[in-house]
């Protein structure tokens, strides 16, 4: 039988180690958060003063002070639109199929396993695939379309997974209520499943686009140019049918590539440009992710089944 004193000493000792462990945990968490803050502050201190209106309306230049990101942000914008057009319909459709239609058989198992594995495939191999397939086999060239398709495929798993999660949160009672009214499967999906899961799907779309906007390696691999001093063809023309899709086949650069280009030069003035581009990129991704987090929490609160 242990004495009361032994017990108390034993507890003191364990309380001490418990405290040490909690402190280590807190330090690890803080270290990660401080790294994030340091990164933001360091980048901003260098970059923010460089962000003027001219910076957005100038093409890159040999002179650091005159250079801007006009072609880069227009390029990023065009690539994002193409990515969204490619990934959203495909991803949502795949998500709907896997949750609402797929039966438990080997085909669906392969698809499921494959989606999990896609998350672990390095992004640069998507670029290699795109270079071989889109650029050379399909002769799409080093164009906005190739870039959009590449990034679209890259973020496809994110959209599929979030779509599935959103759909899975809808209770079966809703489906049964719809079928009980005589609705077909597709009607149930269109009138109930898709509207109710739209918040969750939106979250996935935003997260995937924020991932795509920062991607650099696969676009370098498909041969995106780093020095572009012109804009893609305007999407509107003065002759019928007035809408012009020629821009899809134009060469392009994007903000992360522009940043990389400036960063790889030895002169510090160009590093300032890189920092400024970095600030803009970082703000965009942080705002998009913040928006997604907000949307997700609001969606969770609103939907009380």
């Amino acid at each position, binding site marked *: 039988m242990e004495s009361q004193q032994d017990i108390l000493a034993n507890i003191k000792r364990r309380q001490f180690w418990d405290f040490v462990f909690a402190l280590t*945990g807190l330090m690890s968490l803080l270290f990660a958060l401080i790294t994030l803050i340091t990164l933001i502050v360091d980048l901003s201190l260098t970059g923010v003063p460089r962000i003027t209106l001219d910076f957005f309306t100038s093409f890159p230049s040999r002179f650091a002070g005159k250079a801007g990101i006009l072609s880069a942000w227009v390029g990023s914008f065009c690539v994002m639109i193409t990515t969204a057009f490619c990934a959203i319909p495909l991803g949502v459709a*795949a998500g709907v199929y896997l949750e609402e239609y797929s039966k438990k058989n080997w085909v669906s198992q392969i698809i499921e396993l494959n989606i999990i594995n896609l998350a672990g495939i390095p992004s640069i191999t998507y670029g290699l695939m795109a270079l071989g397939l889109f650029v050379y086999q399909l002769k799409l060239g080093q164009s906005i379309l190739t870039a959009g398709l590449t990034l679209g495929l890259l973020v496809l798993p994110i959209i599929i997974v979030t779509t599935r999660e959103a759909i899975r949160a809808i209770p079966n009672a809703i489906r049964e209520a719809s079928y009980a009214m005589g609705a077909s499967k597709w009607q149930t999906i269109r009138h109930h499943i898709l509207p109710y899961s739209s918040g969750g799907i939106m979250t996935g779309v935003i997260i995937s686009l924020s991932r795509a906007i*920062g991607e650099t390696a696969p676009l370098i691999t498909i041969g995106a140019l780093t020095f572009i001093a012109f804009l893609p063809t305007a999407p509107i023309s003065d002759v019928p049918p007035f809408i012009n899709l020629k821009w899809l086949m134009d060469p392009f650069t994007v903000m992360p590539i522009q940043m990389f280009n400036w*960063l790889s030069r030895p002169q510090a003035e160009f590093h300032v440009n890189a920092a400024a581009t970095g600030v803009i990129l970082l703000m965009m991704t942080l705002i998009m992710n913040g928006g997604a987090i907000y949307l997700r929490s609001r969606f969770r609160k609103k939907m009380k089944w």
Partner: protein
Amino acid sequence: MRRLKERVIETVLFLAAASSVLVTIGIVGILVVESIPFFEHVTLKEFLTDTEWTPLFENARYGILPLLSGTFLTTVIALLVAIPLGTVTAAFLSEYVRPAWREVLKPILELLAAVPTVVYGYFALLFVTPLLQKIIPDLSGFNVLSAGIVIGMMIVPYVSSLSEDAMGAVPSHLREASFAVGASRMQTSFRVVIPAAFSGITSAYILGISRALGETMVVAIAAGMQPNLTLNPTEPAATITAFIVQVSLGDLPHGSIGYQSIYVAGLSLLVLTLCFNIFGLWLRKKFQEKE
């Protein structure tokens, strides 16, 4: 008519789902097809044993070892940072922090994974390296150490978030059983929660390893893109991914040996990633059998 429409819709949706498999097939297929001609020039033995990788030089050498050593070194440094930090953070969030706080802290932590990698490259080159040079004066301006550390910080949320999910999924009745015999939080965490969540934690580590192996921009920017057969982290080196970027930046005629070499590099990376994933699966299986 209505039946037909339903059938058509189902088929279209199925094709969308199946397209994700086509992506995998596409990646593997293209990498293999474009790599085959490479081995008409280079023997497998040379590829695996030669100690230099200079495919774009006049008298080219085709040994993958320098790229492997670079990749290996950055990954190890990244994991030395990410696994302890990520695991301890996960245990702290899961076992010590109130749920309301956890809901706030986890998404903020996940922002670390949302920062574009090129921004991390900037951070490694222009913040971390100068900082490290104050401690290690003869650290080269381009070095593996700083790139590895920054990649480690970048993958902390992958490790911590998934590990925390796994720990959170450990049923609370196991925790209660542990507390009921007088265990402390730390004891409960180490002796019950972490072993019970081992399978999920392994997946988190494997995803972290996959990210570290495939990370490109940070090494391309901060580690110097010079193939270098070394295990000294203070020197510059190139990883498989950095090499692909370096070659892609130049002019690259379709079918040239340079073009083939990036596919061989990409294929090696994919095989490497695959090996680690299989190792992870095996580890989980083995542990589950033991239980």
